[in-house]
């Protein structure tokens, strides 16, 4: 098993006719992911790469193909609307890759999703990968922009706010012959869907996940909240790393959410919360996999 997505999960891509969305839809198809539909309003009836039907709306795509998850590659000004369209169509999962969505739009989306059954991952995230059985994990479910081939099927769950730092952790595991159950990049924006805590709870409940790497960064208190929960309810080994110990306060470090403000959200506070929760803290980003493997 794995969490949230399986190799047979049917996905649609919102913004499949854009260059970014199209490129990654193609990479997901090559990986063996069930990309069953694309959505671009006004281009319904066409085919993407001569094989994936394009629809004018998410509702039509869901009705005709049975897709249950979506990847959003829509430009920032229209992304909030695209997420809400996926929610209204009753999708299980919406993964929003788009970077640069105004915070106010995400505040509205989160409030509007309060009663909904749809789970949101992102925005400003690499997405989610459940590795498949293939030699370089082909046949898995890849929603988003992560490189598929770095994964291997296995039993470690990875959750991170950063894309390339996720790849780093996954690659360290794979190079040590250790596979992954599911890897989630939750995104670098201050207001986002799935949190560290949400992902950690799912991994703890998943019988196929035996250990977890949790990667955080400065800003907010999501890492502390996840650590507090682990302290009470954790049942599996967890290794952690927090990026940004050297970041100057008051400056936004690339990610909109990566900022120490008013003395809050420091790496030191997060690392301390990890320690108190019994999470093994990697001394450097080079040691993320080894730190977990020592505990397993």
């Amino acid at each position, binding site marked *: 098993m794995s969490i949230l997505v399986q190799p047979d999960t049917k996905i649609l891509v919102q913004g499949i006719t854009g260059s970014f969305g199209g490129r990654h839809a193609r990479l997901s198809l090559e990986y063996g992911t069930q990309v069953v539909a694309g959505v671009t309003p006004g281009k319904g009836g066409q085919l993407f790469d001569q094989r994936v039907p394009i629809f004018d709306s998410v509702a039509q795509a869901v009705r005709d193909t049975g897709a249950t998850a979506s990847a959003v590659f829509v430009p920032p000004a229209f992304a909030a609307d695209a997420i809400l369209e996926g929610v209204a169509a009753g999708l299980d999962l919406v993964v929003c890759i788009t970077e640069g969505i105004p915070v106010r739009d995400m505040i509205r989306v989160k*409030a509007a999703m309060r009663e909904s059954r749809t789970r949101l991952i992102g925005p400003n995230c690499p997405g989610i990968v459940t590795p498949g059985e293939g030699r370089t994990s082909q046949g898995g479910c890849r929603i988003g922009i992560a490189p598929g081939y770095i994964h291997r099927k296995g039993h470690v769950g990875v959750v991170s706010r950063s894309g390339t730092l996720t790849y*780093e952790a996954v690659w360290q595991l794979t190079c040590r012959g250790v596979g992954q159950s599911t890897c989630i990049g939750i995104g670098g924006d201050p207001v986002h869907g799935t949190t560290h805590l949400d992902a950690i709870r799912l991994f703890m409940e998943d019988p196929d996940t035996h250990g977890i790497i949790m990667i955080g960064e400065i800003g907010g208190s999501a890492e502390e909240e996840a650590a507090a929960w682990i302290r009470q309810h954790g049942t599996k080994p967890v290794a952690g790393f927090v990026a940004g110990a050297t970041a100057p306060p008051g400056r936004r470090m690339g990610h909109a959410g990566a900022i120490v403000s008013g003395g809050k959200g420091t790496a030191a506070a997060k690392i301390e919360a990890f320690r108190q929760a019994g999470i093994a803290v990697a001394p*450097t980003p080079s040691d993320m996999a080894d730190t977990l493997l020592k505990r397993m």
Partner: protein
Amino acid sequence: MNIHEFQARELLAEHGVPLPPGGMCASAEDAGALAQQLLDSGETLLVLKAQIHAGGRGKGTFTDGYPGGVKLLRTAPEIRTAAAAMLGNTLVTKQTGPEGRRVNRVLVAGAPNIQKELYLAVLLDRSLARPVVMASTAGGMDIEEVAAKTPEKIVRQPVDPLLGLQPYEARDLAIALGFTGGLIHQAAGLLMAVYRAWWESDASLIEINPLCVVKTREGKEALLAVDAKISIDDNSLFRHPRIQAMRDLAEESPLEVEASSFALNYIKLDGNIACLVNGAGLAMATMDIIQHYGGVPANFLDVGGGASEEQVAGAFKIIMKDPNVKAILVNIFGGIMDCDVIARGIVQAVKETGLKLPLVVRLEGNNVESGRATLAASRLTITTGESMADAAQKVVRTVTAHP
């Protein structure tokens, strides 16, 4: 994006927030003339404030020794003289760093008869994913200090973003702040106006410190926003062209402005080991690992998760303009991007810029063998790192060996 106090006043005034009368001036003559106008309209005390994006102006000192970026004065000639001393001068405060900021504009405003000072802010509560209105009776003070020492003096009202701040919530806040009688309505009205300004301008922070209870010339009590600070969500600027035009490049580091033209996220730091990385998280982690092995990072530089050849070349140009840099660490996880393309970008950039500094490159990911071969075949003195740790140790060693 931060804006100046005089610009914050414009946005607040448009939403109906009461402010002391006044305006921005770019010359001493204009400042003197505006001062005379304000005096003629009945103001008796005026304030002159240097306009820079940094706090602590009142206690700051200009580089020529002139004291204070905020002055309380009574006559137009005094305002003109003080404005002449400030304009074109460089103000150093605890927030500017020793280099200070050049003052190009001043604000001249009425200085009301203040009875009481409060603090008011609207900002995002990240845990709740909602706006929160935060206020305190300890005005004029640093809110972090108040939060640490007397948290009971701070009142908070989270706002349902789909409804906006409701009048009863605003009144509750006003009552919690100790207002009575007619001032409850005045305060509630002001709170709602500030909330609307936050929401409609896509602000990330509005801070009014102090928010003042003043005695008017008629002897009545009234509320005025005496100082205001606004930051705007960068992601929203596409829909606020007028606010975008308020960006003041003179307030930003020239290297950071140049980097933004290459779509690079660059932040200059004080160290001597430059780093060039793809992805914000990995870029922060690279700074951390440099420090872990005893070095000091010269910058944060994220060329984006995709890292194109052009961006890598642009990044080298930016890095090399920092005179403190003694060595460079390139750390690229080429997930989708071909490492060989990145390697060729690096070789090209090194040749074009005539780089003489030690360069350590750690490449990982797609087609990494070809990438490493390209670096080796270039006959440039590039050290390769096997892992992030290996690369960080090597670059720190080059700096400590040749300090």
